[in-house]
């Protein structure tokens, strides 16, 4: 018997290796677990769950609509670069990018919360930051190509192949998608029915309120993504004059803060 003043429990006895039916595991020292393949495994897991048949159909429809819009704009030979940039900004960056990012980002971790499968990854000795990073990276891996190809086709067809408009579209779409995906991954972890709340945010805030005036536009991801498009294409877009550096900084900062918030949220989550 030990004395009453001795603190905590005795070390955990490891299973007797000679009696185990499987290879005996080393008893890990607290806080010293190495999981070298965890980030890649989590990334592939999220990625596998991103591509459903319904989403592929949705992305096909988006690609078709963007192609048709670009072709229609391109038929006008007078101001087609300006028109193409306007449509890419308003419809592409203002609607297509956030909706695609919402569908993918909110589901990345949100679906696991809803179907109670998060426990299978949460309980493992993996840093929460890796789980958050894997979710954002996997969602962005799908969202960025979908939106860049769709909006790139729209810009290329609409502007008659204007290289600056295309470059601005690619950069604005990439960084805009990344920022939106990061925000919506966090949203998926934060609220139930994240898709619904995300749609409210996209349509009410980004699509209407943020276009009402400069003050609200400064709090809109779309404004900074459109600023990149405006700067690179050398076109003027309403409420999109944030400056090149500020746009890069804000979009990357939003992505980073959302990622950090997701990590923080995972650390404090109550998992079902």
């Amino acid at each position, binding site marked *: 018997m030990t004395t009453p003043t001795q603190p905590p429990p005795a070390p955990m006895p490891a299973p007797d290796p000679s009696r185990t039916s499987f290879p005996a595991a080393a008893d*890990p020292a607290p806080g010293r677990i190495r999981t070298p393949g965890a980030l890649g495994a989590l990334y592939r897991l999220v990625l596998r769950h991103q591509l459903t048949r319904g989403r592929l159909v949705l992305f096909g429809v988006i690609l078709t609509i963007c192609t048709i819009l670009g072709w229609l704009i391109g038929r006008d030979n007078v101001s087609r670069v300006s028109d193409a940039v306007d449509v890419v900004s308003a419809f592409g960056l203002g609607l297509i990018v956030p909706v695609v990012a919402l569908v993918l980002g909110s589901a990345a971790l949100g679906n696991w919360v809803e179907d109670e499968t998060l426990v299978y990854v949460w309980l493992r000795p993996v840093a929460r930051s890796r789980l958050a990073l894997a979710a954002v990276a996997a969602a962005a891996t799908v969202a960025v190509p979908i939106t860049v190809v769709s909006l790139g086709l729209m810009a290329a067809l609409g502007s008659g192949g204007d290289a600056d408009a295309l470059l601005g579209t690619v950069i604005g779409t990439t960084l805009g998608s990344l920022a939106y995906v990061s925000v919506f991954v966090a949203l998926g972890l934060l609220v139930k029915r994240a898709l619904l709340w995300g749609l409210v945010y996209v349509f009410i805030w980004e699509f209407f309120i943020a276009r009402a005036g400069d003050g609200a536009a400064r709090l809109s991801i779309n404004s900074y993504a459109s600023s990149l498009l405006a700067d690179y294409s050398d076109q003027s877009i309403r409420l999109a004059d944030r400056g090149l550096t500020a746009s890069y900084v804000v979009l990357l900062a939003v992505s980073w803060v959302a990622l950090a918030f997701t990590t923080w949220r995972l650390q404090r989550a109550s998992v079902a």
Partner: protein
Amino acid sequence: MTIDSTPPPPPPPPSEGAAGAAVADGAAGAVPPPPPTGAPVAGPPPTRPALLVPPTATVVVDNVSKAFGSLVAVSEVSFAIEPGVTALLGPNGAGKSTLLRVLCGLTPPTTGRILIGGGDPRTDAGARARVGLVPQQDGIFERDTVYQFVHLAAVLAGVGDPQAAARAALNAVELDPGLERPLGAFSKGMRQRAKIAAALVHQPPVLVLDEPLNGLDPKQRRQMISLFHRLGDEGRTVLVSSHVLEEVERFGTRVLVLAKGRLAAEGDFRAIRELMNDQPLTYRIGCSDPRTVAAELISEGLVAGCELTEGGGLEITTADAVGFRRRLPAICSTAGIRLEELTPLDADLESVFRYLVGP
């Protein structure tokens, strides 16, 4: 080991065979705690006796409560468990799943603390690595194959050879690693086994299973119970929850009984059953001459009441279950009566809880 979170009521005289069980506060009766076998987790607070932790304890739950708003799901629960199979018994809604979630670090306790191998699983990755959990819910990565599912668990646990570990774990639960069907197409029993394989894949010293036999057929149940015993015999701590009394009897003898969020009793299952013998119990007797048996039992003062049932049987209530069970065969034999059935009608789980926590 025994935990008393509040001063216990004056103990009634313990019955035979009850020494291995302790009924905690809130119960209908209590027995004196056995002598200390280990050290307290910490200096005992003035209002609460110290939790006695055996040196070989692998899981320590120290005065843990969990509330969701005004709803207290788990209240001041303390225990320490050692390697081997321990059953967590309780009716639906008793707080078993909440307690297991807190124990694994999935949700923080409102008060108290958990130690697994000396670490808090909520904040210590090393402590989490010691645990394998089979959660109660059906949710599973439905698009993955069973091998992908278990292999992922191995990689995330940092197992050196995840392929070999995944195959070994799947073999242990008798699932073919080569199955190409997605988990969504699996039967409930196969999913359950996949979850057990994922929990086992990193060879955790502590295995926590929340109602693991749900959805399994009788043969699979036998196999799983056998597996749990084997793991316990290997020196692992296996904590299995259930609301089915018959299952718990087969899990092993060590039980924790949770009722209304409180630890109602802990110790040897058979001892807890024996404690019930001090309470009026009802039995059904099937025999060739129930009237004569009833008359004999009444004349010997062994029963408090009896009733002839429509099917020709006899139901009796006795406050002296031990004496009744000892005398009944002799009475039948002396009178030349064939005894066909003796069924305790109170030995269901609800009866156990009624007894332990009162009406």
